[in-house]
């Protein structure tokens, strides 16, 4: 399978056509999870633990079952006990046994909000009444929320069987530390000895939620013959099929999952919460069951990302060359192992060519919801620490922050801190583009400061299947198994149109259910344009080969006498008119049958993304309030297939990063209950909080994709946390190392600074 790189000028790639699913979305016709309904469906509801940590002594469901209108009640006892089985899902790995227990508790409730029972009834009111009639006897246990508290020797233990992995000799006592990760290079002590200057900082971040506006929703039907249907919004319906089948111990091919439109995921919908419950309730009741989470449940019971405690120590020569870096990361995993600390270790120094380093990471369980992937999982957290430390180093050395990054920048041929050799990366180009921007030179007003930070994300390839069919009139349908979370149908349509030489309106892109197309990994990891796109392009190339073969037969010539160009097969000698795809499709029955091609692949060679951001903030010195004045994000995007959606990914990632930096945080009361499980007090950016977000798309093509595409969606959330903290530093002189940068914290730091003077 050759993957030659096509180069501009392109007919379709790089344009901005209206997305094919757009009209349905602006008219309200598009069906998201909660919009879907089937006849006779019951309403499912979940009973959740009010305790952060408790033994479940008993659950009595008799009164609930007896209530008129209740058709099914399930508890953990209705689900098989699984053996440990690690499952790679998009960007992080989870143990399926842990996932199954997260879906519904067995002997212990491990966080406030942990599901302990579920009911299905003929109306929401009856379902809610049924929940009230279930009596659960809990034996509350001491709980632990903070990551360092959970690591302490006397911390309450969540899992008696958990032993710290990655440590030799292997420990024999239970711990909340699930795993130790370590990445090393060179001689750390020598590296620090060689340094002229060192800087050390300690940093903390709080758990934050992906914040998708659409709560989880699904409809499930367990047929009398054991054939199951699930309709849900998800980032990966093949993942839903696999997880449901394993959690319920049934065959994957007995489950068909149909993806509905998804209202945001950002990684948080690359796992299951409701679907296995809905299936179990449907099995028991014999009716379809619809389940929709409330916003309160989304916050209390679906994975945020980790809160963290980190230290960074850097050593550098006077000219800015880094000689050593030591990073220690302690990440909250929530109730089960699997924080993104491993990925964070790998990305920590990915932008830097450092000869000596040690990156140590700890995956720690806590009595909080099991964390789920959140856009470049782990990377924004560690970048907050590393980029804040680099900013202080730049100040100490009196070197411009962009210059300091250029001095130590990774380039093609450099071995990345996480292992592979960099090829075709555009990091330096991105730094230069930002340095050349108007924003970089723009003057600042009173109480304003400018912060700079860089960021990295690997992006992945992975498994995708695509099929391309040519209708009898030459129109083309591209079908994939990748749910569209941000416009990927548009990019599939465009890549197919470009490859086939057709106008974009002649191509339609659809997403098929798990029974109608081959396997695809989740839509996540910034993989879809790259990997699913590759499958689409390869399938189109098969169509071209097939069309050419048929034309050769129809023309009655040798293969080397024709060429495919601009959507048609032309005779080199021009002795007859060309045969268009429509011509060939019309006659396809006579030349071998329908024109159709499918490609299933495991895409390798995804190009990593580098970002460099400038953030201007204004800080009110009397109240500590922060306003975002100006923001520019430069990023190496490989090739912008549809620039507007690439810009949109960058702008959305920046907005999430700024929310994370300034105002978002999970707040818990002393009992371990979340205090702000709603959009009023979990404060995400609103339209008036942000200015226009300027983007600079740097295109250093990835030769392992025919159009040079690299993943773009995740890198943009990585730099903003430190960019904001560095801007506060510039505006106020205050270095705040704890997120969020809330006004009380800024004022308190300001008071401390003044007292110290």
């Amino acid at each position: 399978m050759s993957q030659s790189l096509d180069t501009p000028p392109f007919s379709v790639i790089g344009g901005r056509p209206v997305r094919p699913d757009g009209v349905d979305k602006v008219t309200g016709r598009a069906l998201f999870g909660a919009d879907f309904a089937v006849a006779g469906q019951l309403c499912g509801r979940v009973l959740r633990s009010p305790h952060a940590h408790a033994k479940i002594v008993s659950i009595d469901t008799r009164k609930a079952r007896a209530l008129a209108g209740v058709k099914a009640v399930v508890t953990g006892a209705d689900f098989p006990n699984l053996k440990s089985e690690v499952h790679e899902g998009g960007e992080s790995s989870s143990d399926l046994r842990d996932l199954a227990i997260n879906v519904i508790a067995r002997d212990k409730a491990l966080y406030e909000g942990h599901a302990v029972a579920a009911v299905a009834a003929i109306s929401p009111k009856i379902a809610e009444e049924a929940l009230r009639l279930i009596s659960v006897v809990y034996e509350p246990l001491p709980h632990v929320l903070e990551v360092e508290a959970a690591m302490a020797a006397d911390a309450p233990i969540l899992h008696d069987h958990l032993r710290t992995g990655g440590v030799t000799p292997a420990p024999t006592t239970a711990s909340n530390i699930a795993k130790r990760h370590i990445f090393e290079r060179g001689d750390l002590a020598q590296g620090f000895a060689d340094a002229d200057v060192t800087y050390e900082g300690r940093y903390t971040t709080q758990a934050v939620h992906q914040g998708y506006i659409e709560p989880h929703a699904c409809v499930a039907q367990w047929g009398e013959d054991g054939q199951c249907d699930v309709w849900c919004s998800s980032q990966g319906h093949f993942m839903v099929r696999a997880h449901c089948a394993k959690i319920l111990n049934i065959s994957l091919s007995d489950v068909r999952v149909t993806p509905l439109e998804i209202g945001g995921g950002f990684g948080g919908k690359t796992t299951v919460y409701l679907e296995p419950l809905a299936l179990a309730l449907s099995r028991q009741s014999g009716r379809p069951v619809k389940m929709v989470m409330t916003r309160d449940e989304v916050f209390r019971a679906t994975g945020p990302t980790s809160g963290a405690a980190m230290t960074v120590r850097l050593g550098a020569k006077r000219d800015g060359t880094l000689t050593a870096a030591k990073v220690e990361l302690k990440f909250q995993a929530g109730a089960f192992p699997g924080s993104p600390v491993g990925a964070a270790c790998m990305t920590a120094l990915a932008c830097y060519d450092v000869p000596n380093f040690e990156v140590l990471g700890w995956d720690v369980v806590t009595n909080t919801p099991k964390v789920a992937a959140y856009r470049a999982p782990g990377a924004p957290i560690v970048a907050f620490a590393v980029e804040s430390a680099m900013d202080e180093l730049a100040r100490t050395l009196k070197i411009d922050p962009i210059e300091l990054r250029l001095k130590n920048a990774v380039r093609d041929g450099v071995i990345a801190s996480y292992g592979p050799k960099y090829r075709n990366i555009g990091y330096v180009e991105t730094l230069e583009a930002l340095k050349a921007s108007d924003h970089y030179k723009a003057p600042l007003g009173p109480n304003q400061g400018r912060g700079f930070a860089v960021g990295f994300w690997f992006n992945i390839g992975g498994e995708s299947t695509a099929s391309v069919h040519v209708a009898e009139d030459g129109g083309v349908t591209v079908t994939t198994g990748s749910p569209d979370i941000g416009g990927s149908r548009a990019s599939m349509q465009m890549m197919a149109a470009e490859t086939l030489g057709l106008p974009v309106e002649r191509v339609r892109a659809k997403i098929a259910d798990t029974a109608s197309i081959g396997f695809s990994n989740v839509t996540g990891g910034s993989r879809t344009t790259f990997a699913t796109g590759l499958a689409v392009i390869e399938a189109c190339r098969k169509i071209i080969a097939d069309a050419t073969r048929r034309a050769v037969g129809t023309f009655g010539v040798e293969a080397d006498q024709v060429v495919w160009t601009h959507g048609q097969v032309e005779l080199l000698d021009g002795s007859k008119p060309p045969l268009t795809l429509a011509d060939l499709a019309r006659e396809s029955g006579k030349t071998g049958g329908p024109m159709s091609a499918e490609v299933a692949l495991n895409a390798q060679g995804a190009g990593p993304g580098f970002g460099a951001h400038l953030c201007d903030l204004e800080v009110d010195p009397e109240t500590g309030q922060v306003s975002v004045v100006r923001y520019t994000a430069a990023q190496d995007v490989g090739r912008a297939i549809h620039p507007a959606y690439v810009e949109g990914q960058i702008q959305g990632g920046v907005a999430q990063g700024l929310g994370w930096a300034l105002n978002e945080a999970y707040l818990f009361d002393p009992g371990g209950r979340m205090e702000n499980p709603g959009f009023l007090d979990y404060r995400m950016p609103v339209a008036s909080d942000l200015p226009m977000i300027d983007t600079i798309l740097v295109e250093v093509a990835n030769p392992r994709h025919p159009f040079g595409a690299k993943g773009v969606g995740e890198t943009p959330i990585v730099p903003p946390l430190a960019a904001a903290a560095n801007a506060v530093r510039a505006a106020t002189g205050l270095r705040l190392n704890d997120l969020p940068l809330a006004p009380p914290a800024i004022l308190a730091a300001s008071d401390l600074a003044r007292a110290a003077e």
Partner: protein
Amino acid sequence: MTKLSVRTTVNGDEQNFLADPTTTLLDALRDELRLTGAKEGCGTGDCGACSVIVDGRVVCSCLMLAVEAEGRSVTTVEGLAEAGRLHPLQSKFLEHAALQCGFCTPGFLVAAKALLDVNPSPTETEVRFWLAGNLCRCTGYDKIVRAVMDAAAEMRQERCA
């Protein structure tokens, strides 16, 4: 509780449906009338995904009881396009790529229409503050604001023409 009869005009059509006294207008629109454009993002009036226009004012339909719509006129996203022609706001949202997942889009379109009905020439700041009650997690609002201002400009031109 026995259901009450509600007579209301929705997108120009007279509707008559039954609702529990405690059913919200949002649930009645979605479940009784199958107008699923308005979405529940939070149920507590903090995200605007359920926005509809009632007697000329944009409101959160999750904060209204269905019975309060008695005798009133309601406009939902489904009422913006007319006879196969998209409203300028809808076209501009598509043109500017002002949506990614599209879940918040109906709420934004309805709220933006209400803005342009009372202020045909809003500044960027006015647009942002008017729409502050509509949460978007995908776009960072940039292209949404551009689309609204561009639609306003087009509608002003159409009025002059």
